[in-house]
């Protein structure tokens, strides 16, 4: 009993001293955690992001000043769910929060998952950078955000979270522009009810109205349903000539495509970046591919600066395959974190100093182009790519300058 008690006291004591030491500067090794869904059909995309992150760390020599950077990849998915799982996400965030050597956390891949990890890491005062979250409400309030967003994610009142990918008011506007471009007059929106899917559904809805396209409906789907035939009939009855699915591949995107295409073969089917991956595009039939259009922040490799071109070449050389769309954002998420640690200089072991350095990122030349991080933690990049699908692959169509 006494031993247990003293052990408890010792544990408390050591935790206190180590956290104060990490906030001064003494540590030699800093850990960057990554948390992505590595099971289910998110795996190819996530694995590619992990590769991008590793590549960035490797090219930086694995060290910043005196500090050795350790990289730990965590999985926020469970087999039972087949995608990110709330329990797994909070386990990962807590694991990082309890490690006194943690300096930053890259993740989550899905916005809904980040909504769970942000508050935990915010309380621990750890910099979190997502390679892929686009949900509007994670950083800003307004249309596209829910009540209480984003403040409810930051219990300390200070911002600790940022992202390197343009957010969904920009994607919504890009979607609307792209749909108008393809001749849509009436669009039916389906969403998967998640933070991301519902969010991109409503930002797109707002943008469509603005641009003069009728929104025939915005329905949440039951992502566990076997099929969506009844819903597809409803879309047919509404007379919509286009459908937009706000959601991710894992939430039955292919089934939505099958059923809607069967009910309304002429309808053009639009998807957001959540379906911009091979597990989605390779599963569509040839006829479906012809009417499918996907917006995605990743552009044609040719449109990237020289460093970006080099990324694509290096990636292929190292991993023997072309990267999935978000790999370049994984690379950049790691780069901006390493850059922030570097700029924190002497205080590189101090979590708050690294957070401050991240928010002070200005005109950073990167593989994505030159960008800054604004006061909300969002990137100033705003170009979206419009893609068609052919031969089971995304084919870059054009850069969409969203009508704001």
């Amino acid at each position: 009993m006494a031993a247990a008690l003293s052990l408890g006291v010792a544990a408390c004591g050591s935790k206190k001293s180590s956290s104060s030491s990490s906030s001064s500067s003494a540590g030699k090794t800093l850990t960057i955690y990554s948390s992505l869904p590595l099971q289910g059909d998110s795996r190819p995309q996530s694995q590619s992001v992990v590769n991008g992150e590793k590549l960035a760390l490797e090219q930086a020599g694995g060290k910043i000043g005196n500090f050795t950077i350790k990289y730990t990849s965590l999985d926020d998915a469970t087999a039972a769910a087949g995608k990110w799982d709330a329990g797994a996400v909070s386990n990962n965030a807590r694991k990082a929060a309890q490690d006194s050597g943690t300096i930053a956390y890259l993740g989550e891949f899905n916005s809904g998952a980040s909504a769970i990890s942000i508050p935990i890491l915010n309380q621990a005062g750890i910099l979190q950078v997502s390679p892929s979250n686009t949900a509007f409400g994670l950083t800003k309030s307004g249309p596209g955000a829910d009540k209480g967003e984003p403040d409810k994610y930051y219990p300390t009142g200070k911002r600790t979270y940022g992202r390197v990918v343009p957010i969904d008011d920009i994607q919504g506007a890009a979607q609307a522009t792209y749909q108008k471009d393809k001749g849509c007059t009436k669009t039916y929106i389906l969403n998967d009810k998640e933070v991301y899917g519902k969010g991109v559904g409503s930002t797109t809805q707002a943008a469509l109205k603005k641009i003069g396209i009728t929104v025939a409906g915005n329905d949440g789907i039951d992502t566990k349903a076997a099929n969506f035939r009844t819903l597809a009939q409803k879309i047919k009855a509404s007379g919509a000539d286009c459908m937009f699915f706000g959601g991710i591949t894992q939430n039955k995107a292919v089934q939505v495509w099958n059923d809607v295409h069967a009910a309304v073969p002429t309808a053009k089917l639009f998807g957001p970046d959540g379906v911009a991956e091979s597990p989605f595009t390779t599963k569509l039939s040839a006829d479906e591919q012809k009417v499918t259009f996907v917006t995605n922040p990743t552009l044609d490799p040719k449109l990237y600066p020289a460093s970006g071109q080099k990324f694509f070449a290096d990636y292929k050389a190292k991993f023997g395959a072309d990267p999935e769309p978000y790999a370049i954002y994984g690379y950049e998420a790691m780069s901006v974190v390493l850059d922030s640690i570097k700029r924190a200089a002497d205080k590189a072991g101090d979590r708050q100093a690294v957070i401050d350095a991240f928010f002070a990122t200005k005109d950073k030349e990167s593989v994505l182009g030159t960008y800054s991080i604004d006061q909300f933690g969002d990137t100033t990049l705003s170009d979206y790519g419009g893609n068609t699908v052919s031969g089971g692959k995304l084919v870059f169509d054009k850069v969409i300058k969203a009508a704001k």
Partner: protein
Amino acid sequence: MEAATIPSEVGAKRPSPLAFLSENILWFLFGAALAYYLASDFTTTLNDVKTGLSNGTIWALIALGYTLVYGIIELINFAHGEVFMIGSFVSVSLWQTLGVTDATSTLLIVLSIILATLAAMIACGSLNVMIERVAYRPLRNAPKLAPLITAIGMSFILQNVGLLWRPTPDASPDLIGSQKTLFTVLDVGILHSDVFAVAVTVPLLIGLLWFVGSTRYGKAMRATAQDPDAARLMGIDVDRTVALTFLLGGVLAGAAGMIYAIYNGTIQFNQGFTAGLIAFTAAVMGGIGNLKGAVIGGLMIGVVQSISDTHFGQVWTPAIVFAILILIMVFRPQGLFGEEVREG
């Protein structure tokens, strides 16, 4: 003895109108709701009913597996949904291995479907028997909770097998032009897949009812379900009868898995979980242990889902299905057609 039977017979002859109403209130409500929707939008509702019935055939086939097993050993075989998933995987793997696509000649497509059905049925049947042998039989005399936990364990194990087998959702080759319209009745398009689902399911159901109702083995199953100890005294090999029940349940799940793959066109490793939940609900709705109840329960859930999708939005569908289940449990705890489980 005689005195005790007379009042009950009298009671049976003259059910009061009120009792009759309360006994059948759920049917009235269901009928009234259906009539209301038919009156307000005939074609849409008819289409929903059609879609619901054809979706429901798959739930019915899976529900039969739950109900057969529950009827005989009073165990909820949670792994059953996963066995169904394996059925889908086996059939799609077979088609992929043989290289059958929608462009293959009709004769080969038909042959490959028959082959896949048999393969899925055999694979799932033997898988279910193995599960019973490994995970349930050693716990036959243990407290009820023990096999329940091993059932959940088996379910997770099989899900992980599915995950290793196909980590990402896969598309099944569209061998029958699943969503092409075959013919139109009253403005409702009957799709290839609707006909296919019914054409495969009905013979299986008839076969099952005949087997359970008219063969020696079926008789042994019914006897074991009623009283395993008495059945053993009568010389019935109870272990073999239970294994046979699992075989039948697995065979039906395999067929359902094959239909699901063709019908929907996408398969994934966690499809069994929801399907299992819905099918189990169907079995409970119809009266657990009751074969006819499981089939009607499955079809009803299909129709309810489909109508709810149209009128309340798909977001609310699971809530509505389970709200109806709660209503049924409150008014008729034994299910719509009554339980048929162990006596005493």
